């Protein structure tokens, strides 16, 4: 452990000095300086391996805690590691099910099709017919994707956490770093890791998603094969399809890739504002366009939740953003816990309005630019951003990124306009709400008639 501690210390120090040098010893602008430090930190995390890659991924979904430059830089973390030899993976599967691979699967390809820090993915075929929780029966011979926790990965990450905990605790005592809540982040990291290493949780989330979108002709997910799923092994139907950057190939096969990319924005809105739970880890490898013209969502390792009472406020904030109404957006943000003090309201509203006019006057609208600018304003004004709010903004940017990976001119604000407008109208037309507004409406009508 001593040498690992020295190595971590060496890599962090080396990258820190490099950042100081590239930032011209601090004489460049604060934003540019943060960008340089963020990039060096991201590269340090990649150099230090799985535990740090996962830590970086956690930072990338916490715009409520870290400056936007760090949050958006961590998106570029490459979670690609050399595959563990299959002879080390085989015992994990056989131990969890008490049978040999030949008894469990019809065929099993021992070459992994994917390899990340926590798990590896293989291809196999189903031995007997199976009826999944949601969706059509899978006949014997169906192609499967088998996700297996890499042996020792959990222990390695835990050992790294044990090494960095004293360091993080020490850093937390430094006044300038205290606001990042590093100790709390580390404890959340340990919790999320435990959840990510139990693949049954991911399987259940996937089934729930499949149920929520069972009636949607354009959305699908991989059916889970539960008799071949355990804590360390997740077996699901293998989905054939194209990644987002393969729109041309998908279209050549008759898939309307542009429609699916626009539709994806509405799927996200539905997840947030109607269902109250959303896929918070969307990226290139977690989305596919299928030959039957659907979007397939896979890998439900990280999800976000929205409280029932927050749904309307989120719809209002999004609608206000869609219609570039800064005041309304700030007003409704308060209901979500983003509270701007009275003395700052005018300045913050004016700055957000200026940001909206700048980022939304281009074609397509620049949601990412708006999100970075919005979080920067809140950061500068020392307005704390609630966790759910931050996660939502980040997820919205990711949805835009995914849609624009298909076609760079897609405007997700336009794509989401009908959904948010309809939803806000639905909220406005609730009988109880209308009843409460009748006296004011009558007063207004009388005032108008009398002149």
């Amino acid at each position, binding site marked *: 452990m001593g040498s690992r501690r020295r190595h971590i210390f060496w890599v962090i120090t080396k990258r820190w000095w490099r950042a100081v040098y590239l930032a011209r010893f601090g004489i460049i602008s604060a934003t540019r300086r943060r960008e340089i430090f963020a990039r060096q930190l991201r590269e340090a995390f990649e150099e230090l391996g799985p535990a740090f890659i996962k830590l970086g991924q956690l930072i990338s979904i916490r715009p409520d805690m870290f400056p936007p430059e760090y949050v958006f830089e961590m998106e570029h973390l490459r979670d690609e590691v050399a595959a563990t030899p299959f002879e080390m993976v085989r015992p994990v599967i056989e131990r969890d099910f*008490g049978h040999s691979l030949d008894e469990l699967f019809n065929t099993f390809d021992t070459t992994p099709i994917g390899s990340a820090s926590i798990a590896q993915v293989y291809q196999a075929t189903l031995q007997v017919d199976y009826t999944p929780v949601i969706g059509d029966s899978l006949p014997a011979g169906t192609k499967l994707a088998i996700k297996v926790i890499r042996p020792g990965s959990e222990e390695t990450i835990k050992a790294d956490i044990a090494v960095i905990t004293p360091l993080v605790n020490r850093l937390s005592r430094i006044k300038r770093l205290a606001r990042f809540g590093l100790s709390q982040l580390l404890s959340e990291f340990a919790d999320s890791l435990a959840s990510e290493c139990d693949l*049954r949780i991911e399987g*259940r989330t996937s089934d729930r998603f499949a*149920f929520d979108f069972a009636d949607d002709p354009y959305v699908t997910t991989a059916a889970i094969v*539960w*008799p071949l*799923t*355990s804590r360390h092994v997740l077996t699901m139907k293998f989905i054939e399809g194209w990644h987002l950057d393969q729109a041309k190939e998908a279209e050549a096969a008759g898939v309307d890739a542009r429609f699916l990319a626009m539709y994806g924005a509405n799927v996200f809105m539905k997840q947030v504002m109607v269902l109250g739970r959303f896929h918070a880890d969307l990226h290139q490898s977690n989305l596919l366009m299928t030959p039957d013209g659907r979007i397939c969502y896979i890998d439900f390792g990280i999800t976000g939740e929205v409280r029932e009472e927050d749904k309307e406020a989120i719809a209002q904030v999004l609608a206000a953003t869609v*219609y570039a109404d800064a005041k309304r957006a700030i007003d409704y943000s308060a209901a979500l816990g983003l509270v701007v003090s009275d003395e700052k309201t005018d300045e913050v509203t004016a700055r957000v309005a200026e940001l909206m006019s700048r980022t939304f006057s281009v074609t*397509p609208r620049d949601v990412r630019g708006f999100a970075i600018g919005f979080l920067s304003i809140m950061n500068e004004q020392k307005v704390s951003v609630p966790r759910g709010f931050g996660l939502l903004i980040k997820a919205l940017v990711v949805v835009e990124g995914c849609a624009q990976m298909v076609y760079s001119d897609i405007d997700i604000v336009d794509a989401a306009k009908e959904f948010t407008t309809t939803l806000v109208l639905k909220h406005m037309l609730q009988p109880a709400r209308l009843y409460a507004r009748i006296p004011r409406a009558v007063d207004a009508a009388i005032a108008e008639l009398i002149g």
Partner: protein
Amino acid sequence: MLTNTDVMKFLAVWELLHESADEALKAGIARGEDTTQGEMNADKGAFVDGLAAMVNARKDILKAELAAGSDESLEKDEGPAAEAVAELRFEVAELRGRLESMNATLDALATKL
């Protein structure tokens, strides 16, 4: 005293009102349909026109569905009881999935005994 002429005049006013509203709505829809990206945010009038066009597009879909003999939007609205049944069915199926997984783990443990 109310005369026949008054009644006819009232009905004529009523019809004129509807005709004007109908023409205004049609003009609004036409303007809304011509709205290009971003213009719907320009002012309240543009927003109402855009909204009218969106509602009109939905109306056309509904008309087509009714003409085809299937109104999807009405068919899906099966009420809270149907939703509760579907939710319960899902929970039972999910429980079956959990049991299948637990059974596989139990089998694995049994082989080690």
